C-alpha cells in the first residue's frame, strides 16, 4: 500500500533538487568571467524506489518511484588537457624569459643605427686616416683623441648595461624561486583542505579549481610534472624530485655561488643538492644569465682587450709629435701588481699563477717560408680539465701552417704574425671560469720553433716550458718585456679608456714611425713630425685578422656578435608566437569542456525553473486530493 502523503514527499524532493540545481546554475553564471573556474553540474538521480525484492513487499506492481535527489555536484574538467597546457606553458615561460632579455640586449647594442660601438669604431679608423695625412696638426690629434674616448665610453656603456642585465636576471632568479616556494606552499595547504573535505564525502570543486590554477602558474616558472594517480595525494615534481607530496612541501633555495661571481644557484633547501631545471622561466633566466649574457660580456671584454692590445702594440713603436715613444694608446691595467705577472687567482693572499695575455717573439720571421725544423708544441686547453694538447710541426711547414693548426685546435690560445713580422701568441676567453680569461696556460716546444726560431721561450723541452700554474714562470720566456703583455684586470671593457699620457698631451699620439739607432732592440728615434705612417699602420688594423678565436677583424667580430644576438632574438620571438597560438588553442579546448556558456546556463535555468514550478504543482495537486478526501469525511 502506498502512503497517502507519499506524493507530497516526492513533490518536496523535486522542489529541493531543482532548487539546488538553480543554485549551482547561479554559481556558474556568477563565475562566468572567472578564468580558473570549471563549470559544475548537478547530478540528479532518482531516489531508491520502494520495495526491494523481498517476501514482505506489497502485492502490487512496483517498484514505486520515490522522486529525485541530488547525487553530487560534478566539476567538469579534462585533466589531460591540463597536462598538455602544463607542458606547453613551461616552454612558453622559457622562451618568454629569453625573449624579454634578448630584446633588451639588442637595445643595448643599438644596431643597426649610427650610435653604436661599430659606428664609433669606424670613426676611430677614420680619425687615424686623417691623422696620417696631417700628423703635424693639433686638430687631427684632438679628433683622434675624442673619437677614441667616444669608442671607449661606448664600450664601457655597453659592458655596464650588459652587466646590469645580468644582475637583473639574477635578481629575477631569486624572485622566481621565492614565487615557486609560495605557490608550492599554497598547493600544499590546498591539498590538506581538499583531503579533509573529500574525507567527509564532499566535492571541493572550487578548491580544486584554485589548485589547478596554481599548478598552471607554477608550470610557467619551472618544469614540473604532476601525479594524480593516488586520489588522496597529489604530487608535484621538479625534474623527478618532489616539490609537493600531499601535505609535505620541500622548498627551493637561491644560494649565492662564489664560483659564479656570487650569483644565485638554485638548490633544494633541505639537502642543498642541485635542482634539475630544464624548462620554464627559471631555466630561461639561468640560460640568459650564464650563457647569453656571459657570452656577450666576454665578447665585449675580448673586443676591448684585443683592440687595446693591438693598437697599443703599434702605438708603442711609434713616436709622438713631442718625440715620446713607448706610450700606450688605450689604458691597460694589469691584473697583477708586479711586472712578473704573478697573481693570486684563488684569493688566499698568496700569488699562485703567472698571468700573461700576450707574448711576441724577439725574432723577425718570414711567415710564408718553410721553417725547416721539426718538433712538437704542447699547449693546455682552456677548460676545467687543463688537458694537454700536442701539435706537431714539420720541416716543410710554413709558420702560417703551424699558426693555422694551433688556431684550428681552439685551445684558448691564438697565434698570429704581428706588425713587426714576429710570431705572437695571445690568450682568449676561458671556457671554465671567467677568472682565467686572457691567461696563456702553457707553452712548450720539443724543438726549436718557439725557441731559436721565433724567440719566445728560452729552452725547449719540459724543463723550458712556461706554465701559468707556477709563479715567476715569466723567467722561462726569452722575449723582452716590451713583447709581453700581462693579463688585464677582470672585465677590461668596464674600464676602457685612453691612456693618461694621451689624455693630458695629445702630442703623445704616435703618428710617426721610428728607427732603432744603435741596436737597442727598440725604436728610439722618430722619423720626423711629418711622418704619418704609424697612424696609417693603426688605421690598417681595421683589416687585420686580429680578433681571437674567430680569426676575424674587429668589425667582423662585432658584426657576428650582432648577428648571433639577432638570430637568438628571432628564434625567441618566433617560438613565443607559436607557443602563444598553441596555448590559445589549448585554452579554448579546455574552455570548451569547462567553460560557462551563458545561453546554456539560461536554458538550464528555465528548465530547472519549470521543474521547480511543476514540483510545486504536484504538491498543490496532492493537497487538493487530500482536501477532497477530508471534505468527503465532513459530509458524512
Amino acid at each position: 500500500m502506498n502512503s497517502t502523503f507519499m506524493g507530497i514527499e516526492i513533490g518536496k524532493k523535486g522542489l529541493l533538487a531543482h532548487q539546488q540545481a538553480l543554485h549551482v546554475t547561479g554559481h556558474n553564471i556568477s563565475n562566468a568571467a572567472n578564468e580558473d573556474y570549471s563549470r559544475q553540474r548537478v547530478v540528479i538521480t532518482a531516489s531508491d524506489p520502494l520495495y526491494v525484492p523481498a517476501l514482505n513487499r506489497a502485492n502490487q506492481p512496483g517498484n514505486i518511484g520515490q522522486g529525485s535527489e541530488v547525487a553530487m555536484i560534478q566539476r567538469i574538467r579534462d585533466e589531460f588537457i591540463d597536462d598538455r597546457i602544463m607542458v606547453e606553458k613551461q616552454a612558453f615561460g622559457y622562451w618568454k624569459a629569453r625573449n624579454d632579455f634578448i630584446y633588451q640586449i639588442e637595445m643595448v647594442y643599438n644596431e643597426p643605427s649610427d650610435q653604436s660601438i661599430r659606428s664609433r669604431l669606424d670613426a676611430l679608423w677614420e680619425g687615424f686616416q686623417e691623422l696620417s695625412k696631417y700628423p703635424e696638426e693639433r686638430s687631427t690629434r684632438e679628433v683622434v683623441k675624442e673619437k677614441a674616448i667616444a669608442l671607449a665610453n661606448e664600450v664601457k656603456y655597453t659592458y655596464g648595461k650588459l652587466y646590469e642585465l645580468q644582475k637583473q636576471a639574477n635578481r629575477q632568479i631569486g624572485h622566481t624561486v621565492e614565487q615557486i616556494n609560495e605557490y608550492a606552499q599554497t598547493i600544499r595547504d590546498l591539498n590538506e583542505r581538499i583531503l579533509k573535505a573529500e574525507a567527509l564525502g564532499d566535492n571541493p570543486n572550487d578548491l580544486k579549481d584554485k589548485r589547478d590554477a596554481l599548478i598552471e602558474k607554477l608550470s610557467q616558472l619551472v618544469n614540473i610534472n604532476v601525479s594524480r594517480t593516488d586520489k588522496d595525494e597529489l604530487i608535484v615534481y621538479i625534474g623527478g624530485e618532489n616539490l609537493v607530496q600531499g601535505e609535505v612541501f620541500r622548498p627551493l633555495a637561491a644560494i649565492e655561488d662564489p664560483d659564479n661571481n656570487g650569483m644565485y644557484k638554485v638548490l633544494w633547501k633541505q639537502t642543498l643538492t642541485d635542482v634539475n631545471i630544464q624548462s620554464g622561466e627559471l631555466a630561461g633566466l639561468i640560460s640568459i644569465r650564464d650563457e647569453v649574457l656571459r657570452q656577450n660580456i666576454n665578447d665585449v671584454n675580448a673586443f676591448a682587450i684585443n683592440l687595446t692590445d693591438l693598437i697599443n702594440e703599434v702605438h708603442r713603436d711609434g713616436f709622438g709629435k713631442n718625440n715620446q715613444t713607448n706610450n700606450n694608446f688605450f689604458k691597460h691595467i694589469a691584473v697583477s701588481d708586479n711586472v712578473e705577472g704573478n697573481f693570486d687567482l684563488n684569493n688566499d693572499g698568496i700569488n699562485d699563477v703567472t698571468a700573461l695575455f700576450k707574448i711576441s717573439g724577439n725574432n723577425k720571421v718570414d711567415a710564408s717560408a718553410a721553417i725547416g725544423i721539426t718538433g712538437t708544441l704542447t699547449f693546455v686547453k682552456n677548460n676545467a680539465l687543463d688537458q694537454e694538447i700536442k701539435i706537431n710541426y714539420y720541416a716543410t711547414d710554413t709558420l702560417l701552417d703551424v699558426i693555422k693548426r694551433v688556431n684550428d685546435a681552439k685551445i684558448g690560445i691564438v697565434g698570429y704574425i704581428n706588425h713587426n713580422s714576429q710570431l705572437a701568441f695571445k690568450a682568449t676567453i676561458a671556457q671554465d671560469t671567467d677568472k682565467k680569461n686572457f691567461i696563456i696556460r702553457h707553452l712548450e716546444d720539443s724543438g726549436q720553433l718557439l725557441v731559436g726560431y721565433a724567440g719566445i721561450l728560452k729552452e725547449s723541452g719540459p724543463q723550458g716550458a712556461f706554465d701559468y700554474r707556477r709563479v715567476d714562470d715569466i723567467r722561462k720566456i726569452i722575449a723582452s718585456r716590451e713583447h709581453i703583455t700581462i693579463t688585464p684586470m677582470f672585465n677590461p671593457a668596464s674600464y676602457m679608456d685612453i691612456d693618461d699620457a694621451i689624455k693630458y698631451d695629445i702630442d703623445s699620439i704616435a703618428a710617426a714611425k721610428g728607427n732603432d739607432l744603435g741596436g737597442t732592440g727598440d725604436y728610439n728615434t722618430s722619423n720626423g713630425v711629418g711622418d704619418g705612417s704609424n697612424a696609417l699602420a693603426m688605421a690598417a688594423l681595421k683589416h687585420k685578422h686580429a680578433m681571437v678565436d674567430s680569426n676575424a677583424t674587429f668589425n667582423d667580430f662585432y658584426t657576428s656578435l650582432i648577428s648571433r644576438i639577432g638570430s637568438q632574438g628571432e628564434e625567441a620571438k618566433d617560438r613565443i608566437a607559436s607557443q602563444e597560438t598553441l596555448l590559445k588553442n589549448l585554452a579554448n579546448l579546455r574552455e570548451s569542456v569547462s567553460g560557462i556558456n551563458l545561453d546554456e546556463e539560461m536554458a538550464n535555468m528555465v528548465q530547472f525553473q519549470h521543474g521547480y514550478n511543476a514540483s510545486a504543482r504536484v504538491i498543490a495537486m496532492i493537497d487538493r486530493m487530500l482536501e477532497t478526501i477530508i471534505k468527503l469525511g465532513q459530509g458524512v
Partner: protein
Amino acid sequence: MQRVTNQMINNTMIYNLNKHQQEMDKMQDMLATGKNVQFPRDNPVAATNQMLYKTALVEIEQYIKNIDESKSKLSEVDSALQSVIRIFQRLRVLAVQGAHGIYTSFERKEAAATEINQMLEELVNIANIRGATGKPIFGGYQTGTENIPDPFVPIYQTLTAGNQGNAMIGVQYRGNIGKILREVANGEYLDVNVPGNWAFWATNQVLSANKDVSQYRALATQSFKIDGVSIQIAAGDTIDMIVDKINNAGLSVKASIGARNNLVLETTVPHAIWLEDEGSGTFLRDAGMVNPDFPNPPNNIDPTVSISGMSIFDMVIQLRDDLVRGDQELVGGRDLGLIDMALDNVLRHIAQVGAKENRIEELAKRSEYAKSNILDILAKSEGIDFPETIMNFRWLESVHNYALAVGARSIKPTLMDFLR
C-alpha cells in the same frame, strides 16, 4: 559536439584584434622610419648586412677623401716642378749664350752672375716651398721644425769674381727620404711626395769608399738600409755576397768592387744615396762608407769617400762659376749637358707625378662607383617598399575593421534578449 563558450568568443576576438594591432604597430614603425629593420631580430641577415654596408660606406668615403687630398698634394709637387722647368729654360738660354762668348765683358759677366744668383735663390725657394698646410713639400718627413725650418739650406760665401758679393756656394739637404703615404684603397698606398734628394738632383751619384774590403766577413747577422730599403746580411757573408744582395734588392743603386778592392755605390737614376746602418749593424761603417762619428743621415758619408754627382744647385753654381770665369768650352760642353740631364730628371719626376695623378683619377672613379653601389645596396637592404607596405597596411586595416564589426555582432545576442 564542441561547446563554444562566451569566453572563447571573447578570447578569440581579443587575440585577433591584438594580433592585428601588433602588426599595424610594426607597419607604422616601418612607414614612419622608412626602414625595415628596427632590431636585429627583425631580420638578422639584413641587419648584419646593413652594418657591413655602413662600415664599407664610411671606409670608401674616407678613401675618397684621401684621394682628393692626394690629388692636391700631387698637384702641389707638379706645379713646383713646373716652376723649376721654367727657370731651367732661361738657364739654358744663358748657357747657350755663354757658350757663344757673349758674356766676355766684365759688366756682362756681372749681369749674368747676378741673374743666375737670383735664379739660385728662386730654386732654393721652390725647393723649400710650402704646401697648403704650411709645411715644406720636398722635405720627406721633415716638415719644418724649429731647429730645421727648411729642408734645403743654402751656404753663402763672399765671392770677388764677377763682383757677386755674398753668393751661394752650395746647398745642403737636411730633409729625409720619408715617403708620405696615403691609403687610397684597401691596402693600396700611394706616396704623394718626392723627397728633395730625388727631385733636385741632376746627375748620377757615385760613392767610392777608400777602404780595402776584399777580406771583409760579416761578424754578426745584421742589416743596413740603402734608400730606406733594409738589406739583411748573415754572419760570415763575404763582400761579394753583400754586393749581390744590394744589386738584387730592387734599388736604383748598383754596388760593385772598385779597383782598390773598395766598395763603390752608383745610382742608376739621379739622386743622393741615403745610407744608414740599421740597429746594431756596422757594415756601412766597416766598409768605410759612413762616417763613424756621424752615422745617421743626412750628410753622414765618410770624409774619405770620393763623391761624384751633383745636385741641381751644384750644377747651377758650377755654370755660374764657369760663366764668370769665361770658360766657353766648359759652358757649352759640360754645363749645357748637365742642364739637359737635370731637365731630364725633373721632367721624369713630373711624368711620374702625372702618372700618379692619372692612376688616382682612375681610383677616384672606381671609388665613386663603389660608393654608389654600396649606397644602392644599402638603400635596398634597409629601405622598405612604400607602395607595397601601404597596400599591406590598408589590407590589414580593412581586415581589422571586419574583425571589429563581426566581433561586435557575435558577442551581443544572448538567450536573455529573447526571454520575457
